[in-house]
């Protein structure tokens, strides 16, 4: 093993960090949209859609991200071919973003739903008692409180997704790990490449954690601490 190689590999790998982060941002953005929609479907028990949402969440929770990735990568082109859209030459990044977005969507939906259910019933009743309608109650009273409560779980989920991006290379995405594999092929120093990758991932996770915990504090100061329960 050659420690100095790490210094050499570091800039080469970190210059692909933006691809990894791009996947993450796309996944979180797609996931938020899906998550909110699915959560609302589940909360209001929209007939028909509720069952679909349940199956979707169960499936995403029930299968490894790797399998989901392969399913989308091989399945989406087949599906789209039925409507005569050819994505067989599309950038694999697209498939990765969709897969991770779908996966985030399922977790976010459950997180949001749990938080909404976690808001005390008294809050709803108070809102109704001053004459709010259902929408006002949801938008002004329940959701703001739910989002603050959901934040720590949301943060965990995002960090989980970041770690999951390490598998994107399996369908040929040129992110950090993908670049690492080409480095291995050319340098034959696999261990050093993976050490460098680990250091970078760890650094990013630490930064995300710091950022999230700072914003959590801000959010709770702004929203009033919901954590403390006064009887």
């Amino acid at each position, binding site marked *: 093993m050659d420690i100095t190689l790490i210094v050499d590999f570091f800039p080469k790998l970190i210059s692909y960090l933006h691809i990894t982060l791009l996947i993450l941002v796309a996944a979180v953005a797609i996931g938020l949209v899906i998550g909110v929609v699915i959560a609302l479907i589940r909360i209001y028990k929209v007939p028909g859609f509720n069952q679909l949402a349940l199956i979707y969440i169960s499936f995403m929770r029930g299968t490894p991200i790797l399998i989901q990735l392969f399913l989308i990568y091989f399945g989406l082109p087949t599906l789209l071919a039925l409507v005569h859209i050819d994505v067989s030459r599309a950038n694999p990044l697209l498939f990765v973003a969709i897969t991770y977005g779908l996966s985030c969507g399922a977790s976010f939906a459950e997180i949001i739903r749990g938080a909404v259910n976690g808001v005390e019933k*008294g*809050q709803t*009743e108070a809102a109704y*008692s*001053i*004459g709010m*309608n259902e929408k*006002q109650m949801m938008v002004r009273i329940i959701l*703001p409180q739910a989002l603050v409560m959901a934040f720590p779980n949301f943060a965990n989920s995002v960090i989980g997704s970041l770690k999951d991006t390490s598998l994107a290379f399996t369908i040929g995405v040129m992110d950090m790990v993908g670049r690492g594999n080409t480095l291995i092929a050319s340098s034959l120093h696999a261990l050093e490449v993976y050490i460098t990758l680990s250091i970078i991932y760890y650094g990013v996770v630490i930064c995300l954690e710091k950022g999230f915990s700072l914003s959590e504090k801000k959010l709770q100061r702004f929203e009033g601490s919901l954590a403390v329960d006064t*009887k």
Partner: protein
Amino acid sequence: MIQLRNIQKSFGNQLVLKGIDLTVNKGEVVSILGPSGSGKTTLLRCINFLERPNEGQVIVDDFKVNSKQANKKEILTLRKKTAMVFQQYNLFKHKTVIENVMEGLIIVQKQPKETARKLAMEVIEKVGLTEKANAYPVQLSGGQQQRVGIARALALNPEVILLDEPTSALDPELVFEVLEVIKRIADEGITMIIVTHEVSFAKDVSDYIVFMDQGEVVEEGIPTVIFNNPKEERTKRFFKRINREEDNLESNLTNAI
């Protein structure tokens, strides 16, 4: 004027309210007393349709709502004419004191922000919390929170304020400050229906007393009559027990000293 006509409510096959009739005149304070489980809370919640009665009518002013046909819009109108003070305060946790009070004014009554703020400050002053206007509910004592609850209801200038045991979740030493605020607004001629276990307070503040037991109004009348001269056996028994409890409490206290 508030009128309840033949309000019936059941949970499952348990009939909790067995046809309640009640009239509350403008400016009156009516207290509802009765043993635990007699249906007091349920009755109060039927008035603003937090529980939908199975049968009967609620009339506020000239606005009549039939329990069976009532649609969302009617219920909303009814709720805009009433306000409620909860046992557990139920302040909006993510909003400051003044925001709690302004919320209904801005969102429901569509008042301009500045008018709402001015009005809210006036009401907050009335309950003695001017200094806490920008505090969040978690930063307040129970008594202070309940005073905000009262301010939130009062600000809406409703036809009636419904109070469900407003002091029963409070530590004993905080009860007084809340009762005092309620008495003060009662003196201003605000119509109120109060469910309470504080008998002497009810005696003091009410124009009219309703005694309930097992989902029925057993006896009603002006305080002096109900407290000094109850006719019904159940009412007598209830007051006797309460008096005994109070005596016990006092003798315990004297013993302790």
